[in-house]
């Protein structure tokens, strides 16, 4: 039995390593599936054991692809769920110690606990019960459903933000933004300018999809972003990940678009599901970047050049939180300064690194 579970874990690890499974959404769903299996099929009796189990799986997965932040986010979400379930189960038992009444109100990170007892020891005592296990699994299934409905929730906010005769600018190809714009197009008439996003040319694909949906789309080369920005009403971006300070890890070219928008005082809106929100901070701008095959920048046809020059092809860009005005998530719209709250609600501070 345990062999099967390990196989599953290794299978996912291999997929991540070989980059066969990429994309926040796909990765999140795969991770969740795996965790459901791991939790339901393993034996554990205390919270600590369960947490350790999940953390060990998480460590393996993250090491397989460290820049795929969605994996870590899901693991942390699940850990948070586990801890919460335990706390609730614990609070159901009556408790006369006076400091406990504070526990449900405050998280373990509260200043209050400076002078209170640490709550870590309590997890040990609660025995697992079947209801606890099924509760946890249920919660995880809820997360899964939430993941599947991300686009639904986000795109329903579209008519609030896009109005008639607006000119929207975007870059790269994001399914979330695509759905968002298509939903808005069903109710409003507007134009979209898409930067073609060399060298991946995802922007071109995006433009094609949008035009198929009947939205008036114009493809511009990346060099024209600043030039046409003065006529744009809004910039809508997708992103690969959102960091804890509100910064984005988004496709290469997003930084220049956001900076140009800021210069012209144009609002920048980021459409993202909360599963992309990571509690990690960008220690520097390249912490979560990957570089891709330079062939698409300077191909082998230029053989004589290649040996003399260095070619760089970063896939992602870091966009500082000063450039972002609004996050549209499946839980509504938030300014970048509110993200810490979402992080506190969904993750635990102990889970920054999965030290066992």
């Amino acid at each position, binding site marked *: 039995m345990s062999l099967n579970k390990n196989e599953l874990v290794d299978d996912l690890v291999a997929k991540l390593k070989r980059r066969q499974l990429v*994309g926040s959404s796909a990765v999140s769903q795969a991770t969740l599936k795996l965790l459901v299996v791991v939790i339901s099929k393993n034996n554990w009796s205390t919270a600590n054991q369960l947490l350790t189990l999940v953390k060990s799986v998480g460590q393996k997965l993250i090491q397989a692809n460290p820049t795929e932040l969605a994996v870590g986010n899901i693991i942390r979400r699940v850990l948070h769920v586990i801890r919460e379930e335990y706390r609730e189960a614990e609070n159901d038992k009556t408790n006369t110690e006076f400091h406990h009444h504070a526990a449900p109100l405050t998280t373990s990170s509260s200043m209050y606990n400076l002078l209170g007892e640490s709550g870590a020891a309590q997890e040990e005592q609660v025995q697992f019960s079947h209801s606890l296990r099924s509760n946890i699994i249920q919660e995880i299934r809820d997360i899964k459903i939430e993941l599947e409905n991300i686009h639904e929730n986000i795109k329903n906010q579209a008519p609030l933000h896009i109005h008639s005769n607006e000119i929207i600018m975007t870059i790269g190809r994001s399914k979330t933004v695509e759905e968002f714009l298509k939903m808005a197009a069903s109710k409003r008439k507007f134009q979209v300018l898409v930067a073609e996003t060399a060298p991946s040319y995802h922007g071109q694909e995006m*433009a094609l999809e949008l035009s198929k949906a009947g939205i008036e789309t114009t493809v511009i080369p990346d060099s024209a972003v600043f030039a046409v920005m003065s006529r744009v009403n809004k910039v809508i971006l997708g992103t690969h990940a959102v960091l804890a300070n509100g910064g984005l890890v988004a496709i290469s070219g997003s930084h220049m678009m956001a900076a140009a928008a800021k210069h012209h005082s144009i609002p920048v809106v980021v459409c993202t599901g909360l599963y992309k929100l990571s509690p990690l901070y960008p220690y520097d701008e390249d912490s979560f970047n990957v570089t891709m095959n330079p062939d698409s920048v300077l191909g082998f046809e230029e053989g004589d050049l290649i040996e003399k020059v260095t070619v760089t*092809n970063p896939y992602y860009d870091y966009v500082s939180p000063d450039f972002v005005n609004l996050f549209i998530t499946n839980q509504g719209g938030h300014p970048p300064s509110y993200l810490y709250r979402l992080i506190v609600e969904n993750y635990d501070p102990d889970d920054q690194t999965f030290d066992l």
Partner: protein
Amino acid sequence: MDPKKKTVGFVPEHDINTSDLPSPGSSNNNSTINSPVSALSNTPDLSSANTPLLASNPGSSASTPPASSTQPRSINKSGARSSYEPMKSSYEEQWGLADRASGSQKAHKMASPRDGSGFPKDQQQQQAGKQKEGKGKRVSISSPVISATSKDAKSSGLGIQGSGPASAEASGSSSPAQAGPGGKGPQKPSAPSQKSMTKAERRELQEKQKAEKAARLQAGLPASGKKAAQVLAQPNSGFSPNPTKSLASSFPGVEAEKAIAAAAESTSQIKKREKLTKEIGLFAHLDPPKFANTASAHKDLHPAVVNVGLQMAQFKICGANARCVATMSAFRKAIQDYQTPPNTTLSRHMQTYLNPHISYLVTCRPMAVSMGNAIRYLKYEIGNNLELPDEDARALYLEKIDNFIRDRITMADQVITSLGLNKIQDGDVILTYARSSVVQGLLLAAHAKGIKFRVIVVDSRPRFEGKQLLRALASAGVSCTYVLLTAIGHVMREVNKVILGAHSLLSNGALYSRAGTAVVAMSAHERKIPVIVLCETYKFSDRVQLDSFVQNEIGNPDELVNDQNNNFGHSSSRRYDSVTSSASSAAAGGVLSGWKESRDLKLLNLLYDLTPSEFVTVVITEVGLIPCTSVPVILREYLPMIQQ
């Protein structure tokens, strides 16, 4: 070649005017529009050079009001283009062809009495001349047309302009066998009958035919009358003539009545037409993309100039300095080979001789500021020395051209290089964008001097001009890095200087340069990295411009399609962060290869942009290092001196 179509040797000014210019372009525009008649490809068709300038003009009217030279130009016959507010974006106006106004009067007088002007008294020629003249007139008709229709068509804030020109004429009358766009000569079968008509009648007929053709194109029918009739004959063709409305009161004549009678074009039809024509509303005031062709070159242009024009249109010569030098050299040859016609002197006729060349160059690519300033200087010198005997004048002009190139370009570049060397130190990481000849010179000189620095070359689609610079630097042994513009946020952190070239510096201190320069300057400014611009003073312009829309150049949108031709066979790379990738991306044709058929998809290939002055730290010119806000000072103080 049809002997009837022998062109005049020296075409009077008024015949070569703006109206001619769109037509060759329009013939090529047709190929980008969903018109079945894309008989002409974009490639310069030398066979069509046999045909005169009027190639694509099936007819022209003559009896209509005199051309007013201030009319905005670039009306596309196909009706695809709209004109715009009476802003002088016409390059002819700016760069000294504005004496067309007086010219047209002059030309009228010239046309009849002087056979020395090269007008064979052949009636065919006259007719040809009239045709040209008529075409010119067409422009003036059109512009009031446009403003009227634009008022009506103003439904969307996107500035949908009214329909194009003279489609006012009722499209109802189908005229026989009208010449198609480009490639064919003007009137064929109808020509014989025209002999018997009076001048005025001929003009009317031509104008009518032209208008009908325009209307056909506007309705989406093939331009040729025969084919249009075929299409219409088919049931369910879905075509209905939709001429422009309310051209009405703006011009007198027969056409006006027809126009009034014509049905109004509804907004949706305008929109449909705009979509059909792939015109970008935001840039409707600019000229449509131009394509290399010799259709507008009649055989009396000096071949050197035609050559240069073609090379510019194909971007084989690009860059402000290169274009200017090439143009001036070509003019030099033209002046050298010039034979003064009888009854005039060289100095007095020179401008007239040069103007068609200039117009032709503009049809190939909109005039660069550098070229324009050089031409203006040349004309100034010509105008100053009207009393010189012929050979002296010729020698003077040649000398002036040589001096200009030597002083304002070559020597200026050397001074700039020496001044710029002071700003490059050991250990510098210099970032530059696309390819500027001055920047290349400076970097090579710095390397030759032994300064140890490395260069990051930023490049962008669709022209990839930076590769040339990269090649030059790498061959010289400079340590280089190459990235695309989207990676600018990533590489900028290592950079400690940015050096850029310029197409022009404007009087409000803004930098007008290759599209993408503004992005680079903005990213550098964000990190407090100094931005150095290298610009010779002859590129300074007294224009002021606030954003990149006021004046710009739109390039061939097909260059953006990411197919074999454009991208050396790279199809878009496999998506890194998604499992699915659209099937079309794997196609060798590129994702957007079907863009013309797609109703809602447009491509915009913008060639220049405007960098605000606050992003530029210093401008190095041959008169020293100046802040970019001092451009008008230089223009005021220095240029008169330099010009002597």
